[in-house]
């Protein structure tokens, strides 16, 4: 058998700029093969076209009028404060839980971690049903709250906060737990040799050192709470001014005033973009979350 040596391929064009780039950074061709390029372009179109549509169809001329014709201000205010309170609650109780999951060990810890992060994958409406079963006037906890304190939670702003916390807190927990897990414990050892007790170490060393992750987790949690729909509408309903948050307002506006729905969506889009930009630069440099 004769093995022929390969012949040189026909030359193609290489621009001066590309020559300079390859010379400076090394590496071979960076052109994208068509079987990868085409699906990638489809993905880009799919993700960006709807957003572009939102911008194109927006009633720019009468944005103010469209917004004022609805309960937009009320809904936005409710959304902003409930998302903020949910995030605050998540930080107060979620960060200690993240620490417990990351740093202590006890039987059933893995199971517990799986359970508390379940809301990440659970359909929010299921979370809403579960909250109802627990906290409604006949629920397992709710009946005592009702008979002892006269406290009824469902269909109140408190229910909105609870629904949002239920769905959003796991985002904070997993982000912060990962940070606790990967934080260099050498600094904590050093703090201990300097006389710091466990709580002091947590407060003055561990927490400040994971601050970037805590910030990222809080922003993710807040964004998730702001967009919460399924659990909220199930557990809290949609009473304007009481429990009708922005996403719910958008949903109802779409039926009778599409322009208002678009205007409300734009507001949420702007808020999301602001969140994303603030995250990207400070916290999410190439990290998976």
């Amino acid at each position: 058998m004769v093995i022929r040596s390969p012949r040189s391929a026909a030359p193609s064009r290489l621009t001066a700029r590309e020559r300079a780039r390859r010379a400076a950074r090394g590496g071979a061709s960076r052109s994208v093969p068509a079987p990868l390029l085409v699906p990638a372009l489809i993905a880009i179109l799919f993700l960006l076209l709807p957003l572009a549509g939102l911008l194109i169809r927006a009633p720019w001329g009468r944005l103010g009028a469209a917004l004022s014709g609805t309960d937009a201000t009320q809904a936005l205010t409710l959304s902003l404060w409930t998302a903020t309170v949910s995030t605050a609650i998540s930080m107060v109780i979620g960060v200690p839980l993240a620490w417990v999951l990351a740093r202590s060990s006890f039987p059933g810890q893995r199971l517990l971690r799986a359970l508390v992060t379940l809301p990440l994958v659970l359909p929010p409406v299921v979370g809403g049903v579960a909250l109802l079963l627990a906290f409604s006037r006949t629920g397992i906890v709710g009946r005592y709250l009702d008979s002892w304190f006269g406290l009824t939670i469902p269909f109140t702003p408190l229910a909105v906060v609870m629904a949002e916390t239920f769905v959003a807190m796991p985002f904070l927990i997993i982000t912060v737990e990962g940070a606790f897990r990967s934080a260099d414990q050498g600094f904590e050892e050093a703090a201990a040799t300097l006389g710091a007790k466990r709580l002091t170490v947590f407060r003055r060393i561990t927490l400040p050192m994971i601050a970037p992750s805590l910030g990222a987790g809080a922003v993710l949690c807040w964004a998730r709470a702001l967009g919460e729909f399924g659990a909220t509408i199930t557990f809290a309903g949609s009473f304007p001014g009481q429990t009708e948050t922005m996403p719910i307002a958008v949903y109802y506006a779409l039926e009778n005033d599409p322009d208002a729905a678009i205007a409300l969506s734009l507001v949420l889009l702007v808020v999301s973009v602001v969140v994303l930009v603030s995250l990207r630069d400070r916290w999410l440099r190439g990290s998976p979350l």
Partner: protein
Amino acid sequence: MTHGDGGGLVVDAEVRRGSFTLEVSLAAAPGQVLGLLGPNGAGKSTLLSAVAGLTPVSAGRITLASAVFDDADQGTFVEAAGRPIGFVFQNYRLFPHMSVAENVAFSPRARGQGKQAARSAASYWLDRLRLTDLADRKPGQLSGGQAQRVALARALAGQPSLLLLDEPLSALDAGTRLDVQAELKRHLSDFAGPSLLVTHDPLEALVLADQVVVFEDGRIVQEGTPAQIARQPGTDYVAKLVGLNLYAGRADGDTVALAEGGTFVIPDHGQHGDVHVAVRPSAIVVSTQPLEHSSARNTWQAKISGLTLLADRVRLDLDGQPPALVDVTPAAVAELSLDPGSQVWLTVKATDLEVYPRNGAQAD
């Protein structure tokens, strides 16, 4: 081995970490700097970690001035935060989110002083270590030598009764190391309590320590003053560290029969039985013809197996009975045309041979 107490640190313990076991019995008196010398993995850092309370002992006990730190038999243990220690870590572990001043004030604050008192304690130590100008910097903005001083200030600011230093100079480049070493020596001699200094650099141990303990494979293989360690190494490892040829042998009258073959004649060396013989590589003379034999000289034949250029001399690696490392000048290499494989004669004066008893159990 037992040690007296006298207000110092006494360690008589065993620490097991997986398959590694550290067995150690040592004492450090107040004001004494005890150098812990040994190769990586010998257990020096494990010992520091046990004394600091970061690793519990598996058996035995650790006490400081009669106060129990850790006692495996009694089951008592004082957490790291409860031990009056100062720890200078290998890479310093300065808190990156705090300024230099906050780092130094950390320990007084954590040990219960008020903010104001902690701040003034910090400024005292910043001043003593010439760090006042750097007080507002973050650790990331410090040079290696500065970071080392901050780490020392932070450890001392907590008013420790015991100072632990883990390779305090190893993160420094050669240029700053000598300056920092001189300064560290001053601060160590000012420190009233015992200090443990871990190092794998023999020079560092010899310069900084009052007493040196040599570790190998989790055991103490030699203890002594720096001068003793340097002149009479107890193991091949130590001999290599201090740059000496070391031979195990058996003394009988004036002759010492060497374990690796060959015999030295050393008049009136005064030892009997198992001995070590140490000789400096520069004390051995290389010649192409045998020198005149006399009772004051030992001469033997050897073959060059390797040449290495050191700073200003050439180190010959010689196979013979016994084998030897010999330092000669580059000129001598050229004049005698020394090549790998050359047969040469080695001569050493009896007065250059240091003979001392071998500690039976620790002989190679």
